[in-house]
């Protein structure tokens, strides 16, 4: 049955129907659907918190808690000013001079790692717990200081070259993990949950009752996910680079592709 068989009244009204006006880009169904998806996400305070604020808080918290500290200075004690003098040259030791009772107490209670006392015939005695790594380290450092102070000359000259480059720290492994977690969470909540919710509220049925092309509905989810993805990854990564100087080695294109694939596969779940 064609339109020519339509009822007269309807046919009359049909003649009145204007030729569809040229719609602006913003009035395109797909643009409107995507905008709506985007607005719905941004107007959900909980979603915003979990997507943007939470990963940053987590990164900041863990990044600070596990940041690399400068090498510890070991506390030791002596009982004579001469020993104190010679040991103070070693920068990795913090030396204090105590009377012998207080020094024994400090060693027993673990306030110092090593106690240096003069032995007979100008010898030096190290008192420490040899099962404690700090005590052993302190002994080596103190021994070197005492020997050098007494005039020992090392046969081989040595120097230190410290390796503390960004890229091997805790935070450098944390940020990519957070990105992954974020992508999973927002993909599942942003897609599966909202579609089910729309169905429960009969909104899906209402939309199907309009001339909305059904592929636009899914495409709008896809586009809004990609938009959100740029924001999510950008904010978390930007935070890491700016505050913790996390280096990005490798191309941003690869990063984009991996994020997109990850997001799509979790959306598909």
């Amino acid at each position, binding site marked *: 049955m064609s339109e020519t068989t*339509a009822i007269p009244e309807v046919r009359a009204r049909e003649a009145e129907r204007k030729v569809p006006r040229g719609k602006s880009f913003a009035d395109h169904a797909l643009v409107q659907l995507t905008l709506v998806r985007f607005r719905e996400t941004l107007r959900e305070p909980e979603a915003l918190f979990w997507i943007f604020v939470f990963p940053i808080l987590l990164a900041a918290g863990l990044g600070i808690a596990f940041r690399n500290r400068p090498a510890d200075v070991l506390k030791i004690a002596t009982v004579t000013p001469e020993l104190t003098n010679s040991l103070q040259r070693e920068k990795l030791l913090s030396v204090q001079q105590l009377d012998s009772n207080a020094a024994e107490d400090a060693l027993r209670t673990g306030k110092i790692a090593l106690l240096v006392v003069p032995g007979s015939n100008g010898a030096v005695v190290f008192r420490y717990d040899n099962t404690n790594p700090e005590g052993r380290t302190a002994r080596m450092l103190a021994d070197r200081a005492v020997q050098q102070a007494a005039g020992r000359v090392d046969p081989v000259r040595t120097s230190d070259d410290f390796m503390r480059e960004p890229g091997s720290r805790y935070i450098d492994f944390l940020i990519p993990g957070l990105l992954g977690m974020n992508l999973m969470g927002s993909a599942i909540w942003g897609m599966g949950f909202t579609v089910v919710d729309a169905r429960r509220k009969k909104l899906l049925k209402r939309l199907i009752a309009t001339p909305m092309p059904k592929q636009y509905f899914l495409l709008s989810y896809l586009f809004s996910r990609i938009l959100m993805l740029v924001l999510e990854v950008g904010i978390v990564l930007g935070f890491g680079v700016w505050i913790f100087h996390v280096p990005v080695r490798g191309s941003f294109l690869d990063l984009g592709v991996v994020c997109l694939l990850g997001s799509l596969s979790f959306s598909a779940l």
Partner: protein
Amino acid sequence: MLDPAPRTALCVSGLRKAYQDVVAVNGLDLEVHPGECFGLLGPNGAGKTTTVEICEGLTAPDSGEVELLGMHWSSHAEKLRQRLGIQLQDTQLSEKLTVFETLRLFRSFFEQGPGADEAIALVQLEEKKNSRVGNLSGGQKQRLALACALVGDPDFLFLDEPTTGLDPQARRQLWDLIEQFKSSGRTILLTTHYMDEAERLCERVAIMDNGKQIALGTPRELIASICAEHLVAFSAGSNSNALDIPALRRIEGVRDVRTENGTVQLQVTELHLAVPALLAELTRQNIPLTELSTHSATLEDVFVSLTGRHLRDE
């Protein structure tokens, strides 16, 4: 072959739909004329919503034909969608969007029709234009749902229980809007279980029960069909057991007598004769009257006389 132009906006024949073991619609025939407001009445579970959803192309019937605006869902789904305005029973629109954004979204699906601003003006929601849907009252939400149905400038409007759960003022406001739309010459199919709504809005009414049509006509015809213009209800308190019902039936002008929860209801043609006669009869039977009321017959009474049940009974 000459195919005469169909005189109907909607023609449903032999419609059947069963859900598992429940038969929701059982051999329904309907005809809706162009430009009329057709009411589909019935209690909850009568099959109204299923019928409407089949007509809207949302549910496939098990058997039967639906012809809408001279087209069929199987061959003209896209074209039909453009020309229908649909309000579903209790749809929750997205609460996070504003009224304007919601209408702009719905408008974007249609080729033509009033703009979002125009649609907001149609349902008088101008002050709420930028409010979130979640902050609207029940009546405002229903008006927004109506605007979503009007935004494609539809030829045929489906309204599924548009005023259920609204307060009287909001219902009257919505009725005014529906009447406005009606006056522009478009066709409406309305389902409701409010009889006063159907009496006010609909030119013709079909009463449904258990998936079947049990009566069809104008509200006036239907009321006339029970052959009684008035109803008299009285209560005799604790003496109602002693009541001589057959004697009441013999009173002039009384068509039918039914008792329900201690209240006796009489269908009466001539109120001015029947009431004095009833009072005299009760005095003769020595039964004191505790309550007496009369009202003009409504579609509700039609339903009661057809099925013996009230419409709102669950």
